[in-house]
């Protein structure tokens, strides 16, 4: 693993652009209470206002300030994204690495499960389960993580299998290191860059899913979400309000996904070194 991920991202133009976009979004999410002049849930009689100094992006159909909702919506989007990214990467690593190191029947069973889960489209499972239990934000994070770690596990297992045969791991084993120690000290650290790429794509998938589910109307209605805002805005598409209600929300969502795509793409040579030097940069 002789590829410096930091350098890889820094030297790529889009990688830098992506990183800046993401940092900006994270800043908006963190500073939401400062940036938002109104309570995002506060309804008022001033509905469907055009943008003005007091309401930068106007108000929605129940008189909530769109800009405030946009800022707080970034929190939902990023929380679900990073939550699922982290949890799914952890699960993928745990199962992938343990399958590679333990082997035998355990490996067979785990990989069979992974293959079976990869086949089933995640969205329809989430919809089915959500139809019965309307998931809150934490349940949603768990649900999406449980359904999305499998792709990562496959990659981690492949990497761990090749690492397992390397000299330093064999040496450690000959000194009597047990499997847990091997996994923790010698395999997982070397997985670092790949973990990051998996994490980034995991976050992207989850951001997408969260918005999509909210757009379908099966998210927690008490939590402001960009998907929900777009869903509300769509029913007023015959008015001019889409210009400051729908478009900024959709652009914000797209920007996060584009940012993640760019960073992920810049980091991709880690998985496929043959792609080095032919990126956008």
């Amino acid at each position, binding site marked *: 693993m002789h590829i410096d991920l930091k350098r890889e991202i820094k030297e790529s133009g889009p990688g830098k652009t992506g990183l800046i976009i993401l940092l900006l979004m994270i800043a908006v999410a963190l500073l939401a209470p400062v940036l938002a002049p109104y309570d995002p849930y506060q309804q008022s009689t001033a509905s469907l206002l055009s943008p003005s100094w007091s309401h930068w992006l106007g108000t929605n159909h129940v008189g909530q300030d769109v800009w405030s909702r946009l800022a707080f919506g970034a929190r939902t989007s990023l929380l679900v994204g990073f939550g699922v990214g982290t949890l799914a990467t952890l699960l993928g690593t745990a199962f992938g690495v343990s399958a590679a190191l333990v082997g035998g029947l355990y490996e067979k069973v785990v990989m069979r499960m992974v293959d079976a889960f990869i086949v089933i*489209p995640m969205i329809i499972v989430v919809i089915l389960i959500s139809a019965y239990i309307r998931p809150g934000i934490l349940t949603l994070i768990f649900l999406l993580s449980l359904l999305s770690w499998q792709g990562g596990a496959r990659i981690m297992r492949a990497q761990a299998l090749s690492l397992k045969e390397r000299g330093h791991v064999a040496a450690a084993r000959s000194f009597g290191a047990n499997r847990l120690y091997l996994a923790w000290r010698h395999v997982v650290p070397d997985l670092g860059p790949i973990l990051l790429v998996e994490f980034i794509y995991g976050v992207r998938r989850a951001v997408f899913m969260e918005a*999509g589910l909210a757009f379908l109307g099966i998210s927690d209605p008490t939590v402001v979400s960009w998907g929900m805002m777009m869903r509300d805005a769509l029913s007023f598409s015959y008015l001019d309000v889409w210009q400051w209600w729908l478009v900024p929300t959709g652009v914000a969502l797209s920007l996060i996904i584009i940012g993640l795509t760019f960073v992920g793409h810049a980091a991709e040579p880690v998985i496929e070194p043959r*792609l080095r030097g*032919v990126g*956008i940069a």
Partner: protein
Amino acid sequence: MFSKGNLVTYAIAFLFILALNFLLPRMMPGDPLMAIYGDEALITMTPELKAELVERFALDQPLWQQLGAYFVALFQGELGYSYYYNAPVLSVILGHLPWTLLLVGSSLLLSTILGITLGIESGWRRGSRTDRAMLAGLMSLNGFPDFFLGMLLLIAFGVTLGIFPLAGALTPYSGLSGLAWLLDVLRHLFLPLAALTLAHLAGGYLLTRNTMITVLKEPYMLTARAKGLSQRVLKYRHAGRNSMLPVVTRSGIWMGRVITGALFVELVFAYPGVGYLTYEALLARDYPIIQGVFLMVAIFVLAANFLIDLSYPKLDPRVSYAY
């Protein structure tokens, strides 16, 4: 060539789906009949009907007997009854399926062909300005969720310019036939198709471009060039064909996702496919429909994967030696 291992995988996936369909409504607190049949059912249900349904699903029996009854119903091809639509689930789904097949099928075809072509051209010119511009452009496009693209197209061409219809798949009560009917269908299809194709173009493109770049480094490319073959033959027959495999796999996976693939776009354009049906069922808590769609999705996915497995050796003869 078809391996036994894959069959086991598909069997596990299918069993998981059945288990979810069976267990979820039965684990819900409250009346299982409501969880199985949805809100609408309880309004229309007479005590006699209720007793009959309880008996049919063995709901007063232990779980394993319920499971038996569930399988019996399933193998008789019965997906249940929707009290919301007042029709058997299967016929409701089959009524919506053609529209989804039309929309997703044509978009899959378009985005795959376009994606492969763009990917080959871009990979061939790797590192050049054209390549970098295409890469940046398509990657940005990739960031736009399909429903947002759909809404933008809807507002631009439907609401503002008024060129295309806003919703549906047909002009209602128009009584059109023949060519006029076909034109009407195409007019309604255009915007959702454009949204879906644009949203999925980048995936196939990126995959083809990546494979193209690695394929171009293969020794046989040098041999082909040394033989003095023309650029076009080199690009399409030697490099291009070998770059198609991952994209074909991807399209195959998409074929399995045909039913859910257009979910959001169908919702934006109120296009009466299975995705829109799912959405309406979600709003009405029409559980039999949701369960039926879920089962259909599973069958499509497994069938598609089976087909990919079958088509692999045809595309890449090296694969068949692997077994």
